[in-house]
Every structure is written in C-alpha cells, then in structure tokens.
C-alpha cells in the first residue's frame, strides 16, 4: 500500500507528527475500505475524498534563473508557483486567481511561458525556470522591463511580472512562427508582431488597472515596430 509506506517515511522524518499521522492512517484505512465498494467508472468520486490524508513528500531539482536549486521534503501538492514564492522565497512571481485564469503567475519554463499555478513543482524535475527576477535586475533591466517602465505598462504593478514574462515569450513565439487565433494565413512563413497579434497572444494576462494599450506600446517597441 503506497499511502501507508509514505506515512511511515513521513513518521521517521518528522517524529513530532507521529500522533497526527497515526490518526490519519486510521482514517485513510477506513476510507480505503469504502473505496473498494465505490463505483470505479471514470469520473466517479472516490470515497477517500472526505478523508484526511497525510502529505506525501518528494525531492525535486531544477534550474531557477540559471542557478541549480534542490527542494527537499516538498509536499507533492506544492505548485511551481508556491515552490518559487514560499520554498525559494522569490516573491516576484505573483499569485492572482490560482486557477490559470489571470496570468499573474506566468513564468518561462524551458523557453515556454506557462501558468506556474497550474503546474506541480515535482513535474519540473531537471527543467529550467525563468522568473521576473531572472530576466533583469533593477540596475540592469531586460529590454522588456525597461519598455514597460518607459510606456507605463502598469498601474498597481501586481500583474506586471506575469505580463513581462508573457511578453518576452510572446515575441519569441512570433519569431518562431507559432500562429495565433488572429493570424490570417496559417501557412505564411513568418508573422509580423502587429498590435492585433500582440493583443490576442497576451489575452491570458489580465490587468485590472487596464494598462493594456501601454503594454502593447511597450511590446511593439521591443519588437522594433511603432504601435
């Protein structure tokens, strides 16, 4: 039984939790009995849903902004976002909706932008993560960071790290020939970073202050076009 063995491992690493874990183990065992009689069709809810389960721990290594980082004793539930903010104490990446809807948590993993809130840290073993802290520093801004400052591409600034990570990756996507919903000719060899292309491709980054038009200006400047 996988869960029981995880519990044992956990007991040994943190003996102080022993009391709690014994109780969890009993609840989990009762739930397992219930599961056996529950329908197992796709989508059926295991009866274990209501049970308290002991956390399962894992170790994960990844490159973060060019530095090798190792996270030990990490609860498997930890999202990449929480690993960055809480475990690694890098609060630049922001938590907005925590459900992949707002884009505040956007980071670049192996060259691609993703929502770090909808990804488990343990699924990024060996991968390379770039956050806003890794793009530039206050005295040595990335061109996109400088353009956001110049064009006022923010007001409160909360969505800005995600906007900038997304913006950098969007220009790379256009350069790599990835089409978008507004691309007229799917078979064209290359695409121009027009304002329409930028707006469509940035739609996964919400800005409650409504700095959108200034963000388009900033990105257009970096892309080498006038907005």
């Amino acid at each position, binding site marked *: 039984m996988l*869960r029981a063995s995880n519990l044992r491992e956990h007991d040994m690493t943190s003996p102080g939790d022993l009391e709690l874990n014994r109780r969890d183990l009993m609840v989990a065992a009762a739930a397992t009995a219930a599961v056996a009689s529950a329908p197992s069709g796709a989508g059926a809810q295991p009866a274990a849903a209501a049970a308290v389960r002991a956390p399962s721990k894992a170790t994960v290594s990844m490159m973060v902004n060019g530095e090798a980082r190792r996270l030990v004793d990490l609860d498997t539930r930890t999202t990449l976002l929480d690993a960055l903010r809480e475990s690694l104490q890098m609060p630049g990446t922001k938590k907005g909706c925590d459900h992949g809807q707002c884009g505040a948590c956007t980071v670049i993993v192996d060259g691609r932008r993703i929502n770090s809130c909808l990804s488990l840290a343990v699924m990024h073993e060996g991968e390379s993560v770039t956050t806003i802290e890794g793009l530039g520093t206050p005295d040595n801004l990335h061109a996109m960071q400088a353009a956001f400052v110049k064009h006022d591409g923010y007001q409160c600034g909360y969505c800005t790290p995600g906007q900038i990570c997304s913006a950098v990756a969007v220009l790379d996507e256009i350069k790599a020939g990835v089409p978008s919903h507004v691309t007229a000719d799917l078979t064209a060899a290359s695409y121009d970073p027009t304002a329409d292309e930028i707006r469509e491709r940035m739609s996964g980054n919400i800005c409650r202050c409504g700095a959108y038009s200034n963000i388009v200006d900033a990105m257009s400047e970096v892309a080498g076009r006038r907005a």
Partner: protein
Amino acid sequence: MKAFSFSRASTPAEAAASAQRIEGAKFVAGGTNLLDLMKLEIETPTHLIDVSKLKLDTIEATAEGGLRIGAMVRNTDLAADARVRKDYALLSRALLAGASGQLRNKATTAGNLLQRTRCPYFYDTNQPCNKRSPGSGCSAIGGFTRMLGVVGVSDACIATNPSDMAIAMRALDAVVETVSPEGATRAIPIAELHRLPGDTPHIETVLTPGELITAVTLPKPVGGKHVYRKVRDRASYAFALISVGAIVQPDGSGRVAVGGVAPKPWRVEAAEKEMVRGAKAVTDGLFAGANPTHENAFKLTLVQRTLDAVLTEARG
C-alpha cells in the same frame, strides 16, 4: 487540495498498469484541468502518475497518408505543426481559439480530449451535481442554463463538453489509440470516445479504468476549405457559447461539427448531406430531438447563423 503520492511513468504500458493497481490513481499530463479541479477538491486522486514525460510527444506521418499525433504533444506544437497548418487547418484553428498561450503550452492532446465540463454547478461544490456526486441531482436543470447543452442532454445532466480541439478532431474523423493495464491496444473512433450522459453523467468516456491514451491519428487529408468559428462572450480567452467547425468542398458538400451545444463534439453525418441546401437544412438535422431551455434556445439560431456565415466564407 487532498494529499496524494506521486510517480513518474517510464512507459505507456507501465503507466496503465500502475493506474489500475493503485486505488484512486489518476494520470496527469499538462495538469491544467486536473490541478484546477484538485484545488477545488472536485477531483481527489490519492496518487498521480505523471505521463507528461512519456515519449508520446511526436507527430508522425502514417502509412495511410495521415498523421499520428502523440498523446503528449502540446496544444501549441500541434497547432504550429506545418503539416497540420497545411492539411488539417481546422485543427490548428480550433486549438488556437481555445484557452491562452500559456495554457496551450502545457495542455496535451490527450488531456484536452478528456478535459471536464465547465458547468458552473459542477464547479460549485455546495450545489448538487450528478456528474460530481452521482445521484445528488442536477442544479443546472431549472437553474442558469445559458452556457449549457441543448442536444444529447438527459434529465440527469445538461452539461456540455468544452473542448475546441475535439470539434476539429470529430470533423476530421480522428481515431484515439489506447493501451490497457493488461498491455492491450485498441483504436476508438472519436465519435465513440465520449458518452452521452443518460442517467450516469459521471461516466464520460468509454475508456476503462487505467486505460491510457497514447495517440490520436488523423486519416489522410480530405482537402476543402477549413473554417472554425467560435462565438463567445469575449473576443479571446473565453469558452464557446457555440462553435462551428466545417470543411467545405468546392462542390458545396462537406462536414460540420458543432461545439458548446452537447456533452460531446456534435456531428450528425446525415445532416451534413444537406450542406448544399444551406445552413438551415443542416441545422434542422443537427438539432432534431434537441431539448433546449428557455435560456439557451438561442444556441439553435446562433448555430444556424454561424454556419451560414461559415459557408459563405468557405465559398467566397
């Protein structure tokens, strides 16, 4: 989120076998749907099997002149593939109309096909929902139904399948390849993958416990003009109210599949035979036996008008 143990599968067969062996286990691919539902404790797996690193991430030509798309190919890569853009443009268009750039970078072919409904009551764990908790009742029936289904629905559930990609796959006659926990493989036509709700809306596909999707194959290209039109409340980054995916041939014949209206990608082969007669004739056949509510009956008209516009565009 409920605690879960985690493992990484090294082969598809091993993944399937583990999924059957470990009670309450689920596969995780991009995680963009599953983790969302786990945070809400709508999904509560005891164990996750990471299938994202399986070598199922390539798109290859088949001997029949079609394409074999690995189950773990990312939505972005599938939409950007030169062969897909040229010969299966409907698929590129449908993918690009869905979600956001960030999400498409993670979302996989298999995960997209198996994403769950966006019915607001399914997401609200304080409300009864037969899909989330079988036998508890359906809060949508008699509730707010503007976004919900009009055809293929039942007295137990009127939810829709939210996938854009699946609409294109259905029109393209895609076939889903799987491996079972015993190591047996089978090929399921996309038309048969998703089940209608009947009185068991929690059982959404014909996949058996532990069965892993390994690939989706497309038959050789059928030519024609490919158009995907999605009607939604925002111009970008919103689920479909309705969508129409069509392949129209120079002689006016063609295929059409519709999204946002049913528990599965909705295509009626007999109805599309009427395509030369225009959108109304096709829509009448598509929606024979439809059972809309007063809040979503507009979808029938909206599909007809959208199809009319699509046919005009395709012939223009």
